[in-house]
């Protein structure tokens, strides 16, 4: 049931009737080339160098695979996300000098650099280059959450919302009900809604309340910001129909601001790079991120994303002979690396 037929008069119409969805340029594949905790970046370069060295042949192999699948003109771009949300006090110049310098030494091309805090809130740069607060991306995504209903959910009762938590089933009895001292009920384990024979129950903290002025009212969790990040890479987010981040080219490689939040969410480092967003987003990450990415998949599967944006991406894919699934989570691929 779309709103397409709301009023389709060819005699009279108004501009505000149907807001248009602006498309973003798309690559075939976006490759995320590794990830570090800020503490790793703050120390020596050994860890960075080791991970980047392993990355180079993998990026080559996945690029070759993209060419094999989509043809020699397939567009592939690389990106790297800096964790500046939980460690905002660090110095961008020091960190980026180290990361980008090491990448260059290892022969790894990073086309786009993104900030994790930029997935919570974008920055809007005026024509004079002055930064101001932009769109609250995390809030925008959180508003699209549709919890999965338990059986016999008729709509009579509002969906159970455990402030800031999302799960894929019914929580265990002790979690949901206050202890009744007089008549203790037997423990009922949690149940996954979509289980086959047994459950894999996952309960994710998407945000916590905080009084820290640096975060506003909510401190978003790593899985939630990673969800926003993946949605950006898939070209799925719009604010009133307009893309939420513009990939600003950064021409002064050595001149970084003193504070992370004076930088845009996504920066284009390589002027010849193919588009940032892609039909498919591949992440090559240390094994430690399996839990985070499992959570990302679950959060994505509970979002009612803009159907018009999906329609357009699926349609564009079809024009290029790329079959794009409608489910955003089905457009993510992973490779997890041992030893980091």
């Amino acid at each position: 049931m779309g709103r397409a037929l709301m009023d389709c008069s060819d005699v009279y119409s108004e501009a505000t009737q149907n807001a248009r969805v602006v498309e973003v340029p798309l690559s075939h594949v976006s490759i995320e080339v590794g990830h570090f905790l800020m503490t790793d970046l703050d120390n020596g370069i050994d860890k960075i160098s080791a991970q980047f060295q392993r990355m180079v042949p993998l990026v080559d192999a996945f690029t070759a695979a993209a060419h094999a699948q989509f043809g020699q003109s397939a567009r592939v771009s690389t990106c790297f996300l800096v964790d500046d949300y939980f460690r905002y006090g660090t110095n961008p110049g020091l960190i980026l000098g180290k990361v980008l310098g090491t990448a260059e030494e290892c022969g790894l091309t990073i086309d786009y650099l993104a900030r994790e805090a930029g997935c919570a809130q974008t920055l809007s740069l005026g024509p004079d280059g002055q930064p101001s607060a932009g769109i609250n991306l995390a809030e925008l995504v959180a508003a699209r959450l549709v919890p999965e209903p338990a059986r016999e959910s008729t709509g009579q009762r509002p969906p159970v919302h455990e402030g800031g938590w999302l799960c894929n089933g019914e929580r265990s009895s002790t979690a949901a009900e206050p202890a009744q001292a007089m008549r203790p009920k037997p423990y009922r384990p949690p149940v996954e809604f979509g289980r086959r024979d047994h459950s894999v129950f996952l309960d994710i903290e998407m945000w916590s309340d905080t009084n820290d002025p640096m975060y506003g009212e909510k401190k978003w969790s790593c899985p939630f910001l990673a969800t926003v990040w993946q949605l950006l890479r898939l070209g799925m987010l719009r604010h009133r129909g307009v893309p939420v981040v513009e990939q600003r080219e950064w021409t002064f490689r050595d001149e970084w601001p003193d504070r992370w939040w004076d930088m845009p969410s996504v920066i284009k480092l390589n002027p010849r790079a193919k588009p940032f967003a892609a039909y498919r987003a591949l992440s090559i990450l240390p094994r430690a991120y399996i839990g985070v990415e499992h959570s990302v998949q679950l959060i994505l599967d509970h979002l009612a994303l803009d159907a018009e944006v999906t329609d357009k991406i699926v349609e564009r894919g079809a024009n290029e002979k790329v079959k794009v699934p409608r489910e955003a989570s089905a457009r993510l691929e992973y490779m997890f690396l041992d030893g980091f």
Partner: protein
Amino acid sequence: MGLPGDPLIVLGEVRTCLLPHSSSLSYSALSDTVTVEGLLLALVPGHSVYYKERPVPLAISPASYVGVDCRLATASLTQVRAIGTVATNTMVVGGRVLQGSAYTSVVRATGELRAHRRPWSHYLSRPGATEIVSKGGNPDDLAAGYLADPSLDTLDLASISHRLLERIRADLSMDKKPPLPGIESTRLRWAATIGDVAAPHVRFHLETPTLRSVRLTLTDERELAAAQRFCEDLAVHDWLLTTIGTVIDQAKRFPTLAYDVRGRQLLAPALECLAHLWMPGAHTPQPLRSLWELLQLDPGFDREWMSSVAHVRDRIAIANVGVTIDW
């Protein structure tokens, strides 16, 4: 009709009430603290509101969704289970009238897993649809079951649309001083199917003083997609008729109306706030505008409205004459 994935039936409910605010809201104005756009975007930030200024301002919020997994009401009491999402929109008409609309397009589940619940992402990639995963699901049986009083353990669009309205009405930016006190909200429950008819057909029934049911039998998918907007438009006009009737009844409580200022205090705001909103079919999509012609013949919507408005004007005029005489 009949292809897998085609809707068997669309079920919906629209609630209509007066915005709890003393003045008429403008769509978006820098100087006003409360605007229609602000109210509607509070529910779904970052999206665009559908807005049409003419002939009567209409603003529709972006859709939001509620997950359901339950039985659908049937007249035959056949057990039919459906899983999916109900779509909801809120609307403001003429800066005065607030509507909450909940609807779902019922389809038959397809594929190997058609008797099972699929991963939740499957349902969210087709928002606003519910899939029948059991046997049964005759469209006429579903329509009859839903439009008769559906039992509590079946799909409950009434509660969903009620919660939607309450969320907006609770918005603190409105002053909670509506110009017409004691006006109830009305409910319009509707079901639309494609049937063996030459032209779209509507059956409109007053169930109780505040509940109406509408059964639409349509000729094709295009008309089915327009059904929801038609029902929302119909609900606004039914509410206007109900409300002006209520106001006239309230004024009748003052027997010497001609000299009673209280009677005029009821009637004048009704005329001022509501009279210009009467525009049947103005916001109905083209494929279903012909349905209004049926309703103009029986019960004769325009006739009833004009007679009511004329009645209110006469009473105010008489009251004014009375005041003049009093002087």
